[in-house]
C-alpha cells in the first residue's frame, strides 16, 4: 500500500540537510506552509537557499527562519513589503544574498524544472537591469531573454486536502506556487488541512497528482474553516477577530501566542 502520509510535521521535515535549496510555497501568507516552516526551524537545517515569492512577513514563518540566520540566499520576486523588517535588516547588514527574479519568470522557471525544459526564451524583463548578462534573441521580431530552470532539493507546500497517494487540491488563491514547486523539487513535503480516503478526491479536480508528492502531513483546519466550511471571522492574517460572530474587525489585534520566535 502506498501511504505518503506522515504523523507529524517533525517527521515531515526530517532529513533536510544543511546547504539545501528549499522552495517554499505561498504568496504572502496565502498558501504559506507555516507549520512546515516552524518545523524546519525546529529541525535546525542551516545555510539554506530559499525560493519563495517574498522574503517573509512579520516575525513568523519564513521571517522567523531568516531571523535565526539559517538562510544564506533567497531567490524571490518581491522581498520588500511593509512588514519585511527581518529580511530588510539582514539584507542591509549584508547577511543575506538576494537574487531578484520577475514573478512570472520565477513561476515559469520553476515549471520548466518540473517539466524537463532545458531553458526558454521569455520576453519578460528584456531591456531591464534584471535581464543584464542574459542571452538575448530576436524571435519573430520580438526580443527575448534566455531563462534557465529553477529546481530544489525540497519543496514545502501548503494545500487543502490530500489522499494517501499524495494527490492534492488547494483552496482559492492559496494555490499559487504549490503545483509548480511540487513538480520541481527532489522531495516535496506538503501540509494539508486534512487527509481524505483514497478515491474521495474527484480525479477531474486533482490539481497536483501524487507523483509530485513525497510526504503529506495533516495540520488541521485553518481557523476560518470549520469542517471545510468557510466561517470567516478572521482578519487577513488569519487571526481571530475580536468578535467574530458579529463580524466586527480589529485588524491590528495580535493573536494569542503568535509573538516573535526569538
Amino acid at each position, binding site marked *: 500500500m502506498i501511504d505518503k502520509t506522515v504523523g507529524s510535521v517533525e517527521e515531515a521535515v526530517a532529513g533536510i540537510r544543511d546547504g539545501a535549496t528549499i522552495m517554499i510555497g505561498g*504568496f*504572502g*501568507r*496565502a498558501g504559506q506552509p507555516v507549520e512546515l516552516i516552524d518545523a524546519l526551524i525546529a529541525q535546525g537545517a542551516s545555510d539554506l537557499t530559499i525560493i519563495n*515569492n517574498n522574503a517573509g512577513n512579520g516575525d513568523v514563518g519564513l521571517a522567523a527562519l531568516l531571523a535565526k540566520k539559517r538562510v544564506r540566499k533567497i531567490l524571490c*520576486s*518581491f*522581498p*520588500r*513589503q511593509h512588514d*519585511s523588517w527581518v*529580511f*530588510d535588516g539582514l*539584507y*542591509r547588514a549584508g547577511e543575506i544574498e*538576494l537574487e*531578484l*527574479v*520577475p*514573478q*512570472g*519568470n*520565477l*513561476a*515559469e522557471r*520553476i*515549471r520548466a524544472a518540473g517539466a524537463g525544459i532545458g531553458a526558454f526564451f*521569455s*520576453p*519578460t*524583463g*528584456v*531591456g*531591464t*537591469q*534584471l535581464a543584464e548578462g542574459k542571452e538575448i534573441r530576436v524571435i519573430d521580431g520580438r*526580443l527575448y531573454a534566455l531563462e534557465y530552470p529553477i529546481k530544489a532539493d525540497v519543496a514545502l507546500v501548503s494545500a487543502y486536502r490530500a489522499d494517501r497517494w499524495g494527490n492534492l487540491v*488547494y483552496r*482559492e*488563491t492559496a*494555490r*499559487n*506556487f*504549490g*503545483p*509548480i514547486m511540487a513538480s520541481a523539487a527532489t522531495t516535496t513535503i506538503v501540509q494539508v488541512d486534512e487527509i481524505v480516503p483514497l478515491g474521495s478526491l474527484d480525479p477531474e479536480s486533482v*490539481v497536483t497528482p501524487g507523483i509530485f508528492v513525497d510526504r503529506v502531513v495533516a495540520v488541521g483546519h*485553518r481557523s*476560518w474553516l470549520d469542517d471545510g466550511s468557510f466561517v*470567516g*471571522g*478572521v*482578519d*487577513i*492574517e*488569519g487571526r481571530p477577530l475580536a468578535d*467574530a460572530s458579529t*463580524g*466586527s*474587525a480589529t485588524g491590528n489585534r495580535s493573536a494569542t501566542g503568535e509573538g516573535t520566535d526569538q
Partner: protein
Amino acid sequence: MSTDTSPATRITREQLAARVAQDIPEGSYVNLGIGAPTLVADYLPGDQEIILHTENGMLGMGPSPERGQIDPDLINAGKQPVTALPGAAYFHHADSFGMMRGGHLDVCVLGAFQVSQGGDLANWSTGAPGAIPAVGGAMDLAIGAKNVYVMTDLLTKTGESKLVEACTYPLTGVGCVTRVYTDHAVFDITPEGFAVREAFGDNTLELLAELTGLELTDAAAPGTREGE
C-alpha cells in the same frame, strides 16, 4: 497634491480612475495593478461584465468582502482580501503568468514613475542607493496585455514631468505602454511620441508641452497617426 506646481486643471485620482474605467469595454479581461489602478474597479459600470484578473491566480475577481467575511486564502496581487464572482476560476502561478505573457489580457492598468515617448515604462525601482529591490509581477504586467495603460499624475510632487523623452529610472519594460492617463490629460503613445488624446479642463496641447518639456501631437488631428 500638497505642492501645487501647475496652474492647470487637475482631476482627482477618483475622477482619473473613472476616466480609465470609461475606456474599458464590456467583456474585457483586465488586470489592475497595485495602488491607484485598483481604484478603477470602483468605476467599472455595474451593469456590464468586465472580468478582472489577479496574477496570483484568479479570473473573475469580485469586490472586497464584508467585514467578518475576510478569507485569507482569497486575496489579490496586493494581498488585500477580495471575493470571487460566479464564473470565477483559480489557477496556479505559471498558468496565470502564462495568461499574461501570452497576450490574453485585453487591458492592464499600471502606475508609473516615468513613461518615455517610446512607450518605455519605469515603475519598479527609483534606483536609489541602498533601497531594497523588489519587482514582483511588474515586468510581467508591463508586457502582459494587448493594451497597457498607465495611470499617474503628470508631474511629480516637485513638478517634474513623468512623461519623458527617455526614462532615467530603471526600466520595467521597453516600448510596452500604449496609453497614459494623467490628472491633466490622456496621451497615446504613437510612432511620433506622445499624442494628446484628451486634455482635461483648461489644459491645452501647448500647456501640456510646456509642463512636460516634450513635443506633443494631437491624437485627434488627422495625419498625426494611423486610425484608432
